[in-house]
């Protein structure tokens, strides 16, 4: 039971960064007073009609193109009919059989290497409003705020090709990065501009090489990427236990003659005692208890009665429009990462960190390299020191107190003077207050001791004072040389040129 496979598919909704709603001129701003950003159109008052927001369609096209989707040359909108008080027309304008995009992929970085996660489709639809339910559910009235009604949403449906909860989190992070980079969505899960439902089931191997599949559970109410990961972990485990229990108790049965192919193996769906497939179900994730709560199993699928939206006309997309969108996209994170690796000779891992910080950060890094000419050092300083500074101070790279030229000059200074890392960090910290590298070094009174004769004198004293370290070194413990170097550094208050000291220590030890 422990070697089961996890099958995860994610359904992500992101709000598009338009000024106005999908079909009317009301604001999409988050957090406005209730029912202050509505009009007859988004309230669905009788006689009103929708007109498509050009920018919303454009942003949707950008996203789908960036997700390597096929873009349909002809697309239309459909009505999805269901009754809910946050949906004033009681139908949602969405896309059914002819979505504007399909069959794409998103490349994510895993410890095992890169992986392309397939995307089934991405389509454009309108958001619903918000309901406020009383704490004592079912006891008192619910309240409806229609501000969010009609906000443009892009629904992105992944293939059930995500294999672990960690992978699901990586997929979401990569998706967020991409959509933010191209200006499609701010993807703030806390504000609901990115929402995720996760479909999960497990395939448990049997002795004969086939797998038993548990019924798919759709997890809702996921409020953070970590929550997604935790919920999926919990749910995979829960399904494994439920399967074991239900099979033991005879509540679920397996009919080997009903195996179906999945990827490159055969899967058998569990059946009820009556012989029908155990129905899919929806579960809510409770962040507090760390559990999924299974809601009622759906005995029959909802009947949404989709049909073409007669109040909107179709949209045609030609090659010229797609070319324009591609040009606007610029360099996407995956391509950028590959370029950073090859152009600067930095490791894939580092290139990944750089590219995940976004375009502005990468531009900063490249400007540092331009000034100092050392990509490796530039990379170390930006992804270690600069990134932690930004995180600590909660700053955006665009308002970074240290210019890339400044950081580049610091690197040049370190290389020319041999300033050690600890001292260099002090200089760096002073530079955050607006000093140049030279000013900071002067102010801190750092004067690197580079005089060879003076340093040789110190090295010899150190050797004399540390006979044990010398003996260890001679026995082959090369690390023992650090004690000698440390002595010299202490004597110079850390201002010795580390490269020179290194060379002299080695020469002296090997000589004696």
């Amino acid at each position: 039971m422990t070697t089961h496979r996890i099958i995860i598919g994610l359904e992500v909704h992101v709000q598009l960064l338009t000024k106005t709603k999908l079909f009317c001129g009301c604001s999409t701003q988050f957090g406005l007073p209730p029912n202050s950003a509505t009009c007859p159109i988004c309230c669905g008052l009788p006689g009103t009609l929708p007109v498509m927001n050009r920018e919303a369609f454009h942003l949707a096209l950008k996203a789908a193109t960036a997700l390597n989707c096929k873009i349909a040359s002809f697309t239309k909108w459909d009505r999805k009919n269901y009754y809910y008080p946050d949906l004033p027309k009681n139908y949602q304008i969405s896309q059914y059989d002819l979505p504007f995009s399909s069959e794409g992929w998103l490349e994510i970085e895993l410890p095992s290497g890169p992986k392309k996660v397939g995307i089934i489709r991405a389509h454009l639809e309108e958001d619903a409003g918000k309901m406020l339910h009383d704490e004592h559910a079912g006891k008192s009235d619910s309240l409806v705020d229609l501000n969010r009604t009609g906000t443009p949403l892009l629904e992105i449906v992944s293939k059930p090709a995500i294999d672990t909860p960690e992978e699901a989190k990586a997929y979401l992070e990569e998706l967020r990065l991409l959509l933010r980079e191209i200006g499609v969505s701010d993807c703030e899960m806390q504000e609901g501009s990115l929402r995720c439902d996760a479909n999960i089931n497990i395939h448990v191997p049997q002795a004969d090489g086939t797998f038993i599949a548990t019924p798919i559970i759709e997890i809702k109410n996921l409020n953070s990427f970590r929550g997604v990961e935790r919920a999926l972990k919990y749910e995979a485990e829960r399904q494994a236990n439920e399967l074991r229990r239900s099979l033991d108790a005879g509540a679920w049965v397996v009919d080997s003659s009903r195996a179906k192919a999945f990827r490159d193996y055969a899967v058998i769906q569990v059946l009820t005692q009556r012989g029908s497939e155990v129905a899919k179900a929806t579960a809510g994730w409770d962040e507090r208890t760390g559990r999924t709560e299974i809601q009622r199993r759906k005995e029959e699928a909802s009947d949404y009665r989709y049909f073409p939206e007669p109040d909107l006309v179709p949209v045609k997309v030609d090659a010229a429009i797609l070319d324009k969108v591609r040009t606007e996209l610029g360099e996407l994170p995956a391509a950028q990462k590959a370029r950073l690796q090859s152009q600067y000779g930095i490791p894939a891992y580092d290139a990944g960190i750089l590219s995940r910080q976004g375009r502005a950060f990468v531009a900063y890094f490249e400007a540092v390299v331009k000034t100092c000419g050392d990509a490796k050092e530039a990379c170390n300083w930006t992804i270690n020191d600069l990134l932690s500074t930004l995180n600590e101070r909660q700053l955006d790279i665009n308002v970074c107190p240290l210019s890339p030229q400044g950081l580049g000059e610091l690197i040049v200074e370190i290389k020319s003077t041999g300033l050690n890392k600890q001292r260099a960090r002090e200089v760096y910290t002073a530079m955050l207050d607006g000093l140049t590298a030279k000013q900071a070094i002067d102010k801190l009174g750092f004067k690197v001791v580079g005089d060879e004769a003076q340093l040789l004198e110190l090295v010899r004293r150190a050797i004399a004072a540390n006979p044990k370290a010398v003996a260890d070194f001679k026995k082959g413990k090369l690390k023992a040389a650090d004690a000698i170097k440390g002595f010299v550094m202490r004597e110079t208050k850390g201002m010795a040129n580390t490269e020179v000291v290194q060379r002299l220590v080695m020469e002296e030890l090997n000589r004696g």
Partner: protein
Amino acid sequence: MNLTAAELLERQSTGDLSAEAITQSFLARIQQVEPKLRSFLAVDEAGALEQARAIDAKRRRGDAMGILAGVPIAIKDVICVQGQRATAGSKMLEAFVPPYDAHVITRLKEADAILIGKSNCDEFAMGSSTENSAYQTTRNPWDLERTPGGSSGGSAAAVAASEAPLALGTDTGGSIRQPAGLCGIVGLKPSYGRVSRFGLIAYGSSLDQCGPFAHDVRDSALLLEVIAGHDSRDSTSVDRPVPQYAKVVESPVQALVIGVPREFFNQPGAQATGGLDAEVERSVRDALKVYESLGATIKEISLPHSPYSVAVYYLVATAEASSNLARYDGVHFGHRAKEFAGLIDMMKKSRGEGFGAEVKRRIMLGTYALSSGYIDAYYLKALKVRRLIRQDFDRAFAECDVIVGPTSPTAAFKIGEKTGDPLAMYLSDIYTISANLAGICGISIPCGLTKTGLPIGLQILGAPFTEEKLLRIARMYERETDWHKRRPAV
């Protein structure tokens, strides 16, 4: 006051009449006949007089006058006027006050027309007799025992009885042309996309069009000119120039070819679909002779799929309606039941109480046609036959200018005659429905009276966006006859 809009405009420009005097006169007429007819759901007496005075003041100042300055008009109650109740003939919207004007209302206000009141109609424009109004039954001015047709029966009766010289209606399957025919006036359904639907309470969105009622073709042209044209708030409103219909209407069409579909007439041994009345058929054939005498060529054509149009219509229109009317659930606007247990029950009871029988039937039919397991056999099948119907018209218009036939199989029927048999009621729209499915334009003009003195309508259908030609051809007939000058004695 039996004058046409054109005559009222003329009398005002010569100073014979003021807008106020005109309005007062029509208001007096409404007072006089309304107890018998019940054409109006609301008469805005104070508002109309105020508008009229403002228009007179404007004229005195020497300002440029709108093209319908001082002409009263009745508005079907499915069309929204800001700040005035819009009930759509339904209990559901008894208290609904739209905070906006329909596009056609904005145009009418810009044209200085006087909005005199909201006219009765079948609930949500669903019906062919105006008997489905939740409020009142409108009578046919030619025979008070009979219906004025529907669904725009209030608008048609108001014009026929000279309660207003003009009216707006809406036509989803014949709801302008059929009541115009049964009330002896002119009614025009524009091509789909010609007139903005913004502010028109939707029934069947891919079929609905707003159009004019008037005593004659010239007035129809005038009103169409005001309401037609592009509106950026309706995605299906087409951006193409609006001809000066009223100006060109007097010039006859040369080398006119009239198509007469054999399916619209009784054939030896076979009655036409819907059962065409012999008197109606005779009047239509007489009208064709008038055209022949004007040099027109009469050509028999075929619209082979037209017998299926009622079936297609009652799937497409009801499917769209089932979705369009879903918003009336007692949550954000409209009727909410007083007693209920929980949300779903509130919705069901509000809708159960707020909708009348015919609306419920159509919602049920449309929901059924779209529901899982039935959508292919019903809704999608209907869309396919809809294409065949459209193709029939495309082929026909390749060989004729317009298609002429009866507007309705019979003259006005008696109140209550068809209420027990929905299907029989539906079949009274057999000749008008296919124009909506195909998106073409059509007009009904008076072409005779039955022996018992009931009006008979002649329907002329034109290719999409050929309203100009349609009006000119209608006017050719009108000039030769005086049916349009007959008025009922109410």
